[in-house]
Structure formats: C-alpha cells, structure tokens
C-alpha cells in the first residue's frame, strides 16, 4: 500500500485504461498498448533512476532496461493491476545494477574549489539550516543500495512493506537499513561540512 502526497502527482494524470486490457494487448505484441501502460510511470521511473545512478544518461539507460525487461517479461505478470509496482521493481533493480557497475558517485561539486563555496552550516554543526549543497554531496557519497533505499522511502514515500517488496528484502531489513543509511548520510554530511 502506499499513500501518495499530492505534491508528487504534478505530472498530468492520464486517463486510466483498464490495465488488464492493456497488458493483454501488450502481451500480444502491441507496442502502443505497452506505451500507454508505462506512460504514467515514465517520469517517476526516470527521476528515481537518475537519483540512484547519479546521472541522466545512466538513469535513462536504467529505465530502458526496465522497459525492455517489462516488455519481454509480461508473461510473468500475474495480476495486471500490479503492473506499476512490478515496473517499479524492475526500474529500481535496473538502476541498482547500472549504479553498481559505475561504482560510487563522484559529485561534480566535490571537484570544485571548496573555497568557492562558503555555504554550510554557520556553526559547522547540524543544528543550523541544512545546506542543500552539502546534503547533495553527502548523498553522492552513499553507495547505490543506500541511494535506492532512500529514494524509495523519501522520494516515493513507500511504506516499509512496499520498499521491502521493491528491493526484495525482508521488512525488518528495510527498517534497519534505512536507519543505517540515514546514519551514513549524516556522517557524510558531517564530513562534507568539515571540508
């Protein structure tokens, strides 16, 4: 289950065709039907993939991987109604696969002259206004698994159970990994703040 905040539905909401009919047509090889099936998912899938892989090109590659996997794997989709969730899982896994091949991200910002960036918490600590740029750098220092987990939890606002479904991990693991990932983000932020 998922509760979707309205702030995340900025994309035009298309008229929903019965997913069963679209899936059936896509299974028969109808690319147009498949296109209508995936259309509501593309923007969010691309956005999340970009976050996980750290680049627009890799993010697009990941979504293409997921599209191909979904297209070829439609026979394995038991319930057409869950296509979005299924496609989401394919996307996340594709993005993870690409991100892991690329290794850890190196933020462009990290290569810039630190002196040119006077931003950051005035007290060098954590109680001031959170510096978006430092947070971005800190996020880039996380590994792909952490980025994917935080994307599911805080971009898509998925509950723990659905995050577990998408990542193929037990619910308890999601909770502990979320806690650990936030801890690593915190540590990375601290490190960036000290730079």
């Amino acid at each position, binding site marked *: 289950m*998922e509760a979707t905040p309205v702030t995340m539905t900025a994309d035009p909401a298309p008229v929903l065709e019965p997913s069963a009919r679209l899936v059936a047509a896509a299974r028969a090889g109808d690319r147009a039907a498949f296109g209508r099936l995936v259309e509501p998912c593309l923007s969010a899938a691309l956005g999340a993939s970009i976050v996980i892989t750290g680049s627009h090109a890799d993010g*697009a590659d990941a979504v293409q991987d997921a599209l191909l996997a979904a297209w070829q794997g439609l026979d394995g989709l038991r319930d057409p109604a869950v296509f979005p969730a299924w496609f989401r899982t394919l996307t996340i896994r594709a993005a993870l696969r690409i991100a892991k091949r690329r290794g850890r991200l190196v933020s462009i910002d990290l290569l810039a002259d630190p002196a040119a960036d006077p931003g950051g918490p005035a007290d060098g600590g954590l*109680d001031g206004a959170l510096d978006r740029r430092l947070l971005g750098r800190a996020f880039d220092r996380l590994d792909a698994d952490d980025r994917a987990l*935080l994307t599911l939890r805080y971009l898509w606002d998925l509950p723990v159970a659905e995050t577990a479904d998408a990542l193929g991990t037990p619910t*308890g693991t999601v909770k502990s990994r979320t806690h650990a990932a936030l801890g690593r983000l915190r540590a990375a932020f601290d490190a960036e703040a000290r730079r």
Partner: protein
Amino acid sequence: MTHDDNFDQPELRELLEERASVSDVEVEPLRRYVEQLPPRRRSRGRWILAAAAGIVVVLAGLGAVAVLTVPWGSSGAAPWPPNPAYFANDPRLAVCNATVTDAVAIFELVHVADYAAQLPNAYPLTGLQANPSDPALVIVFKGPGSVDRGGETAAPGTHDLCLVVGADAAHWQQIGIVAVDTTGLAAFKPEPTGTPLAADLLPWVQQCGGVSAGINRVLQLPHGTDAMTLNSVQVPISLMTADPMTIVVYDGAHPFAPLGTPPAPGATVAPRDPGYQDLCILVGSDPAKVKRTIVESGPAGQITGPSGEPVTLPAPPTPVVASTAPDAPSGSIPPASPSSVLRPQISAADCAALGFSDNRCLAVVEQARQTNSLDWSQIVTVHLAKPATGAWLGGAPVADVTFTMADGTTAKATTTCLTANQGSDPVCTDRPEIQLSMPYGPGSGYNDVPCGSVPAGEPGASCATPLPTVDPAATSVPLRIASVDYGLTVGSQVIYLGQATLPNGILSDAHFSLADRMTQAFGVTGPVQLVITSTDPSRPAFDNAFSHGWHPGSEVVSVSLVLDVTSVTPGATLQVRDLVVR
C-alpha cells in the same frame, strides 16, 4: 536538526525531488524507445542441455548472466534462446561496426574474465588492458567480422568475434578476434530433448530438499550479484553478494511448502500460479557449506522467505492472558466492535460510500496521514472519495483522502494499493488474511534432507555431512504454549514468548498459529514472524541446521513474535495458538 533526527526531514525529500525532477523532453526518448522495442519473445517450454551440462549464457533482458541451467519438468520461462535483437539499440554495436543482422549471437559477460568460461575452446584473451571485472559485450558474427581477415574464410565451427569491454562509454575497449572456435559456446546448443538432472547438480539440489519432480530449472551464477539481471526470478537483494549462487526454481511449491508448517497428513500442495515460482537459493561455493534461503512466491508473488538477519529483541513484555491448557479460552475480553477503530474525525459516511470496512477505511486514512506527517491532534475532519487520479507508479489508487486541519488548511493524498500481496494488505481488502512466517523447523528449510539418495562414489554423493545425533543427556526444555493472548498497540511490536533449551543447539520443531487469521479486531502489515535467537550472541543464526551446527551441551534460545500493527480495536489481542519450539 539534531543527531537523532537524522535526515528524515524535508531537506532530504526536497533534494530527492529536485534531482528526480525531469521534463517531458527528457521522457520523450523513452517513449520513442518503447516504439522501437524488439518483437516480444514468447515464453518457451523447457529446454534442457546435454547431461554433461556446461556453462552457458542465458540472456535476461539487456543483461546476460553466465549460468548453468538445467530445466526439469515443465513450463520453464527462461529467456532463451539469446536474441541479437535485444541489443538492437546498444551503442556498443557501433563500436564493432556491427548490426544485429550481422550476428548469430550477442551476449554480455558480467565480467570479461568470464570469457574463457563461456568459450572454452577459444584462445584465451591475452594482453587485455581492461579490468578483468569489467563487463563486456560479445558479438559473434555470422561471417567475417569487423576485423580484416585478409580474405581468409572462416573454418567450420569458428566465427569472428568482437568484444566491447568496459562499463563506461568513454573507456570502451574494442577487441576483434578472428576464427574463434565457438564449439563450446552453449548458445549454439540445439533445443534439448530431455535428460536427467545433471549429476553434478545433485549435491546442490539435495540442499534444497532433494530431487523433486517439481524442479523447473537450476541456475548457477558465478556471483550472486548476477541475479540482478534475472527477470524470471526474484532474488532478495540481501543475498546478492560476490559469492557464487545456485538457484533451484520450482514449477510449483518448494519441497518444504508450506513455508514453516509441516504439511497436514494427506494434504496436497497446490501449484503456484503461472509466472510465480518458489526458489531455493544457495549462496556459497561448496554445496555442503551453503547458506540456504527459501523464497516462497506465494499465490500473490510475495517473498516471504527467511531474512537471514538477526533480530534484536527488546525487554520482554508481560502477556495479558496465558494458558498452557489445550484449547484454553482466550480470556474474557469480548470481541470489539469493528466500528470502534474509526476515529471521530473520519467520515463514516464516506467509508460506507466507498464500500470499505471501518478497518480498511482507517488503514487508508492512516497511510495518507503518515505520508503527510500529520498529527491527529491537529486534524479536524477527514473525507474520503473515489480516487480521481488514474495510475501512479506506486500502484492502483484506492481513495483520495482530504484532511482539514485545525488552522483551516487542507492536505490531500491519494492512497494506493500497490502490493502484490493484496490478500493481506488492509488497504487493499476488507478482510486481509494475516500472513505467518515461520522460518525454522521441519518443513521450513532449516532442516536438511539426509544424504543417501546417491550411492557412495557416485557424483552427487558428496552431500552435507549429517550432523551428530542429539545427545540424550543434553538438556532439552521445549517451549509449548497452547493458548496465549497478548494485548496489542499500534506500531512495531516484538512479543517475547519465552525461552527454550535446545539439546546440542539442534532445532527440531518450531511452529505456531493464530486463532483467527482474518480477524478485524486489529490490522497488521507484513507477516507475523516467529523469531528464534540464541541467548549466546556468539552463536550463529538459525538459518540452517548445518550452518548453525551441532553444539556441545545445550543452547538456550529466546522465542518472540515480531509484527507491525496498524490498527487496534479496544481490547484486541493477538491470539497465539499451538506454539511449539523445541
């Protein structure tokens, strides 16, 4: 922000939303990609290698995994045969000046170092400047490849190859090789006609409960991370490591099914729905020393396998009612009215108009509230309506929820049901069935099948060494609870049930049930899990009898139930029945 807050704050969400923001222009290439997708390959029936099965390459989507695959039984859905068209849009083709029509096979190597394993009769790659762990695309040309062969014609059984090595387009390395002996490339093997399970797979299959007619195929991956590219099976990411992985895919239920519960006498196990198959996943290079995980796809495709991770237990709470008498009454607490779960702010008329039970209505509202981080004390009214939006990446919409706050502002959310396990999600159904998870005990995969099905000296006879029998002198104190009820509150809960003393650390039984798995007195997300942990932190987890091992003397374990409670009617209890851990 304090340290304890971590980054569960708007700043993190804003950062992610900023980075995930894409324009329609950026999405347009994806739409064009959909229009240009290659023809769908249809699910094929089984294909079986020769008995002396070698390593082959199976393409899974864009990725490829070096696997040894031996189907068994019927209705395999392995992505086979490899189809060069999958790579029609791969820019690496241009590096080799090739098109898909030039090739008889195109596949990816997860690591270029796997080249020799895939082409056992080819000359080894020498002088490779790339990192051996880099991926590579291999193009097997029908005729002369992109390398000048000086007019020489290819000998039978040989092909020209072109490899594109590297993960980064900026550093792709092209390698052209002429007259490669491709006779060992299993992608060229003909459609099989049916052979017994390869003998060298037997030790692995025995770890999964023995040879079963229900085995669809066996996948052997050089690295667990290679499972990422498999489309037809769902491997928990937590198992994806650099260690080798063997996956036994079943047509229907795994031999231990139903998970964690010994089958009733005379019971039959219904096959899984098409497309959803149980898995037995073995991680490790030695079949006698593997970590085993059973993934039970279930009727709705939900993974309910054991976590393999230890659970930290808090201090045990005190049960409100306890009895060790069989069929003891579960206390005098009357069943609560389901209507009592609705908070006064929620419009009961809206719930009725949607046709939702009060429990489901509350679950819908609760998820929307949590998503918007709203405090009940500030919420004046809650209205629900049929969802206005069509589709969302998260799943099918269930209801639009509008909160009116004390300061006059409103907040809205669309609650969606995206879980594949719709039968157990209170947002998705009026009567969710509580799932039970018992990853230990007979029939769960914890206990191994004794060796002996293969004669000594035969391939496959080297199965795990049987554990020593239990020492009769070792102390054994089972935990048996015929009936016990626990008071519930909303939130994650660990209910401590008690301790058991296992002779020699051998777990021989662990199961429980609930009085009413479709109760509406409370709601949960996810399964109710039976968790057994040793009181000795140095002892391994109870994943597998062999990994846990035989322990001199006795081992004291803590037994708990772990569950996430989403709603509770006044007086609702978790009515545990027939629990045995010994």
